């Protein structure tokens, strides 16, 4: 079974709008990461949020973590065309070194 999964496969917004990507996971975690992968590139980390944190910000990005419902969200405000990418959440398994990525949400930001 997947340890992490995003709730929507694809989203489309107009530039300047806000958007939220959701992620649910099935085991207890110590941290959750959000990554962005642009077409043809390797992923790049956006935010790392630890289990004792409820919210983390990075510029226009805001991640939340709810350990009681085992879910996380990534919100992007004032979207730009360059935010077009696939967004993954990633959590650890009890194997320690294994980082499990969700299925990804493809975000398209239209001009």
């Amino acid at each position, binding site marked *: 079974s997947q340890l992490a999964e995003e709730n929507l496969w694809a989203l489309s917004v107009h530039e300047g709008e806000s958007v939220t990507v959701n992620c649910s996971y099935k085991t207890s975690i110590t941290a959750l990461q959000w990554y962005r992968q642009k077409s043809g590139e390797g992923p790049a980390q956006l935010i790392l949020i630890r289990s004792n944190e409820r919210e983390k910000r990075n510029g226009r990005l805001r991640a939340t973590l709810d350990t009681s419902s085992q879910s996380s969200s990534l919100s992007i405000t004032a979207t730009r065309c360059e935010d077009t990418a696939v967004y993954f959440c*990633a959590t650890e398994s009890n194997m320690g*070194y294994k980082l499990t990525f969700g299925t990804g949400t493809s975000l398209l930001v239209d001009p």
Partner: protein
Amino acid sequence: AQTIHQWPVAEIKAVGSPLSLGCTIKGKSSPNLYWYWQATGGTLQQLFYSITVGQVESVVQLNLSASRPKDDQFILSTEKLLLSHSGFYLCAWSLERGAQDTQYFGPGTRLLVL
């Protein structure tokens, strides 16, 4: 500054042929190293990780093997490619384990097996 280099950039190979992909990390001593595989349009699946020279742990079995001959080098290989090996191979490094730390990814190698 740390840099991560993967080679080759892309490969087209025949089923049954051997494969060797490489990854080099410069500017960071004793990193944890990882290999990931990504099918087109799919998620990233971790294949191997290594926390020290000469030691590699397998995460999933895909008829691939990995080695870490030097502190800054990670090699992914197989003697006989399958069609299912096609995809995007990514090398990554981190200082801490799992989700505790950022994983920094290389540019990837795109592999097409025919």
